[in-house]
């Protein structure tokens, strides 16, 4: 259920499903996302340009020359959502090299978390994660939940350039920078694996919401010789 609907500027609707992050709230967001995507595809709604689901929010962008906040809000309030029963979720394994030259923020994490590098990595690799959403940059997965002992805030000032393939953590989440981009997550390593493929027009993102992801450590040599 949507707890509150408000406007994000004059050309987007902000649907708030709650403040917690868990799989059940996220499933609710995805149900609305799937339902609206279907209506857009069948041309039953006019003017919506983008839907952005996240952990517990759904943002609906629209073309202000065609529709407006009030019309979209009324539409959302009138929707009857059927639970999405189909489940195509996959299990994905992703290699990560944690050599010091790739683990850009390991020193910061050691200082903030008060545990050593080996302990941080052990807790990180020893878990299967759930994909809540993809976004920020093309195909970047937002995964959870990290072990409580390795949770840390974002960088105070985001990096202007985060190297492609950087594997980061922040709060209870893990992610992968699929392209070089600005970013504020704590980087613990880098993956040589292709996480986004724009030549695959139907399914460009390797990881999609609902998938399960685990990471495994590789050496620098394996990293440099990675072949797909």
């Amino acid at each position, binding site marked *: 259920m949507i707890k509150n609907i408000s*406007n994000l500027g004059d050309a987007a609707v902000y649907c708030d499903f709650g403040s917690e992050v868990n799989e059940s709230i996220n499933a609710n967001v995805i149900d609305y996302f799937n339902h609206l995507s279907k209506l857009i595809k069948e041309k039953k709604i006019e003017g919506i340009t983008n839907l952005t689901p996240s952990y517990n929010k759904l943002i609906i962008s629209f073309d202000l020359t065609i529709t407006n906040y009030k019309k979209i809000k009324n539409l959302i309030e009138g929707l009857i959502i059927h639970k999405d029963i189909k489940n195509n979720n996959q299990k994905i394994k992703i290699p990560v090299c944690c050599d010091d030259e790739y683990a850009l923020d390991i020193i910061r994490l050691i200082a903030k978390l008060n545990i050593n590098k080996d302990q941080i990595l052990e807790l990180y690799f020893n878990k299967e994660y759930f994909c809540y959403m993809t976004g920020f940059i093309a195909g970047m997965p937002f995964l959870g939940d990290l072990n409580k002992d390795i949770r840390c805030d974002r960088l105070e000032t985001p990096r202007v350039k985060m190297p492609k393939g950087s594997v980061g953590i922040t709060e209870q989440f893990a992610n992968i920078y699929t392209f070089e981009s600005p970013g504020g997550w704590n980087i613990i390593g880098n993956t040589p694996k292709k996480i986004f493929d724009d030549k695959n027009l139907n399914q460009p993102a390797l990881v999609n919401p609902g998938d399960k992801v685990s990471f495994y450590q590789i050496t620098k040599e394996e990293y440099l010789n990675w072949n797909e």
Partner: protein
Amino acid sequence: MNKAYFEILRAGVNTTIQDKGRNHLYHIGISVSGAIDQRNYTLSNKLVENQLTEAVIEFAYQGPLLKLKNGKINFAISGDILFKIIRNNLEVEDGECYKSYILGDDDQIDIISTKNSTYGYLAVNGGFHLEKTWGSYSINTKANIGPNDGKKYSLSDKIFIKKSDTKNSIKRKINYNYSPDNIIRIIKGTNFDYFSKDTIDKFFKEDFLITNLVDRMGIRLKGPKLKNIVNTNIKSEGLVRGVIQVPADGNPIIMLSDHGTVGGYPKIGVVIAADLDLIGQLTPGTKINFKEVSLEEAQNIFKAYTEDTNKYLNECN
């Protein structure tokens, strides 16, 4: 017959192909892209009798030096731009924006620089010979999507043109005055109440400087530090063009067309749709002020802005 094309003799700072942008991909992390200044983009197409959704060349600061090969075309440039046309007999003409020109074989367009703005647009009659990716011609250099392998143009690249031979010359003009304003109108963001009363006062009363950290993704500002009294992080959630995020260091960032699709910094405000063309054009070193408007006011301002754009389009002949 050989196709007409522009040969790039100087690439310029950030020369790409743009159009209205690419929709319905935010959920996998692909932003809208598209021309930063949608009004000037539209006007450039109108000046060469194109459909208003045709692809154009967008450039920033120093533009490209282009040589036309194998053809004769109509082109127009919009924005606040200093450019020259170098004819194949080496005669040089000063270029005028918002006016269509004929360009012959081996003639060159030298886009020297933008003046009091960041972006300009070059449209050719019939458009460019390019393919759409996910419904748009726009180059997204962050995800390498679109023409030219999703990269900005470099020296010696070629940009092919659909119509190689123009039979009737287009003579069109728009009397458009580019007059940038320093007041940016915003609607309160979804985390407006994360900031102290003192910070909110400063946010609306003091100047913010556009720093050198400006690109198609966003604009980093410097001004009074915006003090967050609730939480400097939120759970990552969707962003749209115009959102003003405030990271823990207190320096706001405004999202532009190639922005990240989600973000985890609190949103103090959102620039209204009608001011997005303007904010994207402001240059580093400019001082701006934020002014709050209601949703209703914003919708009325947008309506007036659209009518104004239509007025220019209708005047074009």
